[in-house]
């Protein structure tokens, strides 16, 4: 164990070398929420407002969270008007239908159980607690939850596909719990499609020695609005990989969190997003190093094209005082393909102990421009292929991490479609 390394930086903007066309890290309010209140203050509620992630209010009660103004630290990039009532209305709409299977409609791997349970089920609340008003609203509103369990020591051969199909635009709440029991191993895919106005809480309980991958794919129809809080609790020597894929929907805001509760845990969090004209895709992750000797790696990559395409990446990593021996690194890269798109990227590393293995972050936003196109074409590569080459190469690193071949192919194809649709 060494003292805090050189690369560690505390809550500072990225000092990574910038590449051509670099845009400053976003520190602006969403244009729709712009107001006079200074950044880095939290909107009311109980608990101590604090710019540290450790001080953020958490509560199961909606009433504990003040109504949103858009000036809150964690909402400042989100165009609230486009939330379609998720932050103001009662979430009484019909929740999207859930169906569990194996890849391509096959049977779900043997041994895995799927239950629909009431609010009083003991497994609800084991991994997550809402950290914002929209998540709390869903927590209060859901009628029944889906619990997916990978039994102890089960090694699932194929992926578990949880299809979430939306058919209604009424604001709705949904609750999903995934339990990976001791020494189990599985890949669970949350596959979101159709149309919805949905606030969702996903709790993931990764018990001791388990090895769980959760891939959340948001391939909604163009009009969907989706806020999803995905909170994982990591047991002793457990491995958790989370992949957030944000492609379709008008406004998608995913907040994945991983909290280490015992030493020896390892977390990898990946994200891939591709925003078209007018789309708002927001990803705010949190890694809570609350215990010693855990490791986390974060890599999010996004591509943007078209007027008003907006992506937000916020990476909060907190190394608490107790978390000696922590090893963490987080990276966000964005590729802006056309003018008029905007990528905000805010890494935020807080370190409360010097006794760590390593901690660092990097963030850069690059542009694909006409000179790059010319260079590739001057080597014989046709224009369409040149663009695909760049985007595919850029995003492939994330797709590769999924390890469910059928899904990898589907996502690669989806990225191609995004490119074709943008007609760039």
């Amino acid at each position, binding site marked *: 164990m060494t003292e805090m390394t050189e690369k560690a930086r505390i809550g500072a903007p990225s000092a990574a070398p910038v590449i051509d066309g670099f845009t400053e890290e976003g520190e602006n309010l969403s244009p729709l929420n712009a107001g006079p209140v200074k950044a880095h203050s939290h909107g009311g509620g109980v608990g101590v407002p604090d710019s540290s992630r450790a001080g953020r209010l958490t509560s199961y009660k909606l009433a504990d969270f003040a109504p949103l103004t858009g000036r809150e630290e964690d909402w400042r990039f989100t165009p609230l008007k486009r939330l379609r009532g998720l932050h103001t209305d009662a979430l009484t709409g019909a929740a999207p239908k859930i169906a569990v299977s194996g890849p391509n409609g096959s049977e779900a791997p043997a041994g895995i159980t799927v239950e629909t349970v009431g609010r009083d089920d003991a497994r609800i609340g084991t991994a997550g607690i809402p950290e914002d008003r929209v998540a709390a609203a869903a927590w209060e509103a859901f009628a029944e939850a889906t619990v997916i369990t990978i039994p102890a020591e089960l090694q699932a051969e194929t992926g578990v596909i949880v299809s979430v199909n939306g058919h209604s635009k009424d604001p709705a709440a949904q609750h999903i719990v995934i339990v990976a029991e001791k020494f189990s191993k599985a890949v669970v895919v949350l596959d979101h499609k159709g149309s919805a106005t949905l606030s969702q809480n996903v709790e993931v309980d990764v018990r001791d020695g388990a090895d769980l991958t959760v891939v959340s794919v948001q391939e909604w129809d163009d009009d969907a609005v989706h806020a999803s809080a995905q909170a994982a609790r990591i047991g002793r020597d457990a491995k958790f990989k989370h992949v957030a894929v944000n492609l379709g929907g008008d406004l998608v805001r995913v907040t994945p969190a991983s909290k280490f509760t015992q030493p020896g845990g390892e977390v990898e969090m990946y994200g891939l997003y591709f925003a078209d004209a007018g789309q708002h895709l927001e990803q705010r992750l949190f890694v809570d190093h609350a215990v010693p000797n855990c490791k986390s790696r974060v890599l999010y990559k996004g591509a943007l094209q078209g007027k008003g395409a907006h992506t937000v990446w916020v990476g909060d990593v907190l190394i608490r005082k107790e978390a000696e021996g922590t090893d963490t690194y987080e990276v966000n890269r964005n590729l802006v393909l056309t003018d008029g798109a905007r990528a905000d990227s805010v890494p935020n590393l807080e370190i409360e102990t010097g006794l760590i293995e390593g901690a660092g972050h990097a963030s850069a936003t690059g542009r*694909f421009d006409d*000179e790059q196109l010319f260079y590739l*074409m*001057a080597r*014989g590569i046709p224009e369409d292929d040149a663009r695909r*080459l760049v985007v595919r190469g*850029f995003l492939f690193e994330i797709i590769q991490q999924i390890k469910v071949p059928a899904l990898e192919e589907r996502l690669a194809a989806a990225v191609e479609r995004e490119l074709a649709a943008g007609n760039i």
Partner: protein
Amino acid sequence: MSTLEIKDLHVSIETEQGTKQILKGVSLTIQTGEIHAIMGPNGSGKSTLAATIAGHPRYTVDSGSITLDGEDVLEMSVDERARAGLFLAMQYPVEVPGVTMTNFLRTAKTALDGEAPSLRTWTKEVKEAMAHLRIDADFAQRNVNEGFSGGEKKRVEILQLELFKPKFAIMDETDSGLDVDALKVVSEGHNREFARGAMGTLLITHYTRILRYIKPDFVHVFVDGKIAEEGGPELADRLEEEGYDRFLAAAATGTVKA
């Protein structure tokens, strides 16, 4: 045997101050097996000529022609020109985020040949060419030109020249920014490819230094968008001693004195 023929080429660009004429009637013919050096002061239009041949959209051809074995190059898109056998080693190679050198080289080779190269021989070929040019093996996994030093970028241009085997190579100040060792390595790379006997070269340079390693058959002096004087290798020696002053003064007064 191929011929690249440039006839009475007039080229302009759009600037904020309006249209600016840069090439004012350039004629030049290069055959396979010939090395032509184009020398001239800064701003005389050398890169403009190179980029126009490659088809950069910024440059407008107002009149004149470029043909490759009789085919109208100006009718071709940028990628078609490359596939027809024209290669431009750029003065300022562009960084392409998200694309590894390996991926880029294979994709380009596939596009140029119309079929994917056999993986085994191709990998070997790339490795060998990189070793010759003293490019570190780990560059294969780096993104195209991203974070490469000026000298590394130039080596990578020559790497492509060796791998893509064009009919005509246009080298735009490949020598600038190179130390003597790198200059030798890069020149040898060109000479290896040239020695195969299937390429002609248009070597654009500001200095005579590179001409010690790449021996030109013809030297053209470029001044103010035109060829002001032409000759054999001896002209380069004379430029080495006298510099461009004689031509610059002439361009100002409109006369050329021999």
